[in-house]
C-alpha cells in the first residue's frame, strides 16, 4: 500500500486529535453514568431479591446457571457505584477504568436477565467499555495532574471513531429491525400509531405514568405517516453522521428530537441520547467541557 493511501486510511480510522477531546468524552459519559447509578442503584440491587424461577439470563449473565444471592447483587451494585467515581475523575484509571466497565456491564446485564430486555443502556455500557480500555484519562483526569499536556495523537482519535460507529450501528440496526419485521409498510405510520396507542393503553391500565400527548394524537391518522417516515429515515440514514461535522449536527439534533418525541408520546425516557452524551463522540467535546467549566455553577464549586 502506498504511503499516501496509508496516511488517508490512518486519518480516516485513526485521526490525530487532542487528548482533551477523549478526556472530555470520559468526563461527560462518566458523570452521566455516575448519576444513572446513583438514581437507579437501588433498583439494580433489588433484582437480587427476585425469585430464582424468574431468572432468564442474557448476555454475559448467561454464564450463570442460577441467580446470585441478594448479598452478592448488592455488593456488585455498590462496587459499580463506587468505581464510577474514579472512572469519572480519571483516578488510578488503569485499574478502576476496566474494573468499572466490567462491573457496569455485569450489573446492567443482570437487570435485563428477568424476562424484560430494556434498550436504554446499551450505548452507555459500550462507551464506558471503549473509554476504559483507551487513553481517556490522559487529560481532564486526576492521573494527568502532574504531567504536562500530551500532544495530539492518533491514540486519542480511534476510540472516538469507534464510539461514533457504535452509535450509528445501533440506529441502523433499529431501522433494519423495522424493515425486516414490518417492511416498508412501517413508513405508512399505522405501525407507529398503533404502537403509541398500545403503549399508552398498557400504561394507563397498569396504573403507570403515560403520555397524554401521545394518547391525544392517536386520533390524527394523517400525522403518523410523517412520523413513521422521518423515524425510519433517521435510523437508516444514521451513517451520514460520520461524513462530516455539519451532517453530524443535523443528524444529532434530528435524532435528539426523535427521542424527545418518544418521551412525550410514549413516556419512554432514553436518557443517554436525551442528555446529549450519546452524540458527544461526534463533536469537539473539549469545547463543550470548557464551556461547562466556565459556568458560574462550576466556578462556585472550585472548577478551573
Amino acid at each position, binding site marked *: 500500500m502506498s504511503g499516501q493511501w496509508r496516511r488517508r486510511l490512518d486519518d480516516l480510522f485513526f485521526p490525530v486529535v487532542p487528548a482533551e477531546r477523549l478526556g472530555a468524552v470520559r468526563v461527560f459519559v462518566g458523570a452521566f453514568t455516575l448519576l444513572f447509578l446513583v438514581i437507579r442503584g437501588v433498583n439494580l440491587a433489588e433484582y437480587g431479591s427476585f425469585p430464582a424461577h424468574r431468572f432468564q439470563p442474557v*448476555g454475559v449473565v448467561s454464564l450463570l446457571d442460577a441467580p446470585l444471592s441478594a448479598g452478592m447483587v448488592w455488593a456488585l451494585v455498590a462496587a459499580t457505584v463506587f468505581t464510577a467515581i474514579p472512572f469519572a475523575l480519571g483516578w488510578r484509571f488503569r485499574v478502576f477504568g476496566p474494573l468499572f466497565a466490567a462491573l457496569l456491564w455485569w450489573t446492567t446485564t443482570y437487570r435485563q436477565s428477568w424476562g424484560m*430486555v430494556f434498550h436504554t443502556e*446499551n450505548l452507555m*455500557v459500550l462507551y464506558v467499555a471503549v473509554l476504559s480500555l483507551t487513553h481517556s484519562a490522559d487529560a481532564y483526569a486526576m492521573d494527568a495532574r502532574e504531567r504536562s499536556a500530551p500532544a495530539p495523537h492518533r491514540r486519542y482519535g480511534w476510540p472516538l471513531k469507534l464510539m461514533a460507529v457504535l452509535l450509528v450501528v445501533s440506529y441502523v440496526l*433499529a431501522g433494519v429491525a423495522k424493515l425486516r419485521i414490518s417492511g416498508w409498510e412501517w413508513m405508512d405510520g399505522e*405501525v407507529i400509531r398503533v404502537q403509541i396507542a398500545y403503549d399508552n393503553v398498557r400504561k394507563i391500565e397498569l396504573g*403507570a405514568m403515560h403520555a397524554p400527548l401521545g394518547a391525544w394524537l392517536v386520533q390524527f391518522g394523517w400525522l403518523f405517516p410523517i412520523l413513521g417516515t422521518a423515524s425510519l429515515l433517521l435510523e437508516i440514514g444514521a451513517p451520514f453522521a460520520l461524513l462530516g461535522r455539519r451532517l453530524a449536527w443535523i443528524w444529532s439534533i434530528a435524532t435528539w428530537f426523535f427521542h424527545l418525541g418518544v418521551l412525550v408520546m410514549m413516556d419512554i425516557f432514553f436518557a443517554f441520547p436525551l442528555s446529549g452524551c450519546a452524540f458527544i463522540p461526534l463533536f469537539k467535546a473539549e469545547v463543550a467541557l470548557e464551556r461547562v467549566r466556565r459556568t458560574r455553577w462550576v466556578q462556585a464549586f472550585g472548577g478551573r
Partner: protein
Amino acid sequence: MHRVFGAVLSVALIGASLWPLFPDPPRDSFPFSNYPMFARKKGNPIVHRVVAYDVAGNRVTISPEMIANDEVMQASRTVYHAIRKGRPAAKRLCKETATRVGRTPEFQQVVRLEVISDRFDAVGYFSGNQTPIRSWHHAVCEVRP
C-alpha cells in the same frame, strides 16, 4: 501498537454489535441488541396483570413492587411470563404476590387476587371505548394477613 489494539477492539465491538442481525429469528440480548422495539405491527394490546379486590368486591390498585419492582413494565412482563408458562406458574405468581400484599399494611383491605389478561381496542380506547374486548382469568388466590 495502538493501531493493532485499536483495530482489534474496533472489529470485536462492531462485529459483536452487528451480530444480532444474523441469527434467524434475530435474538435480542444485552448490550448487543437487534433493537426490535417499535418494529412489530401490534394488534390490540393485551394487558397482563394482577388485580386485587377488597371484601366488597371493589378493585384495589396494587403497586408493581408487589409483583416485581418499581418498574411497571418489569411487573407486567413478569405476569406475562407466568401466564405463558401455564396455570401452575400463574397460580404460583398469584400466591407470591398475595404473600407480599398480605405483609403490606397499605393493602390490608385486599382479600383476593386474580391474574388476568384483558384485550383492549388500542385506537378505540382513546375515543372512549375503554371496556376490554375480551378477558382471560388465569389464577385466583386469597390474601391472608
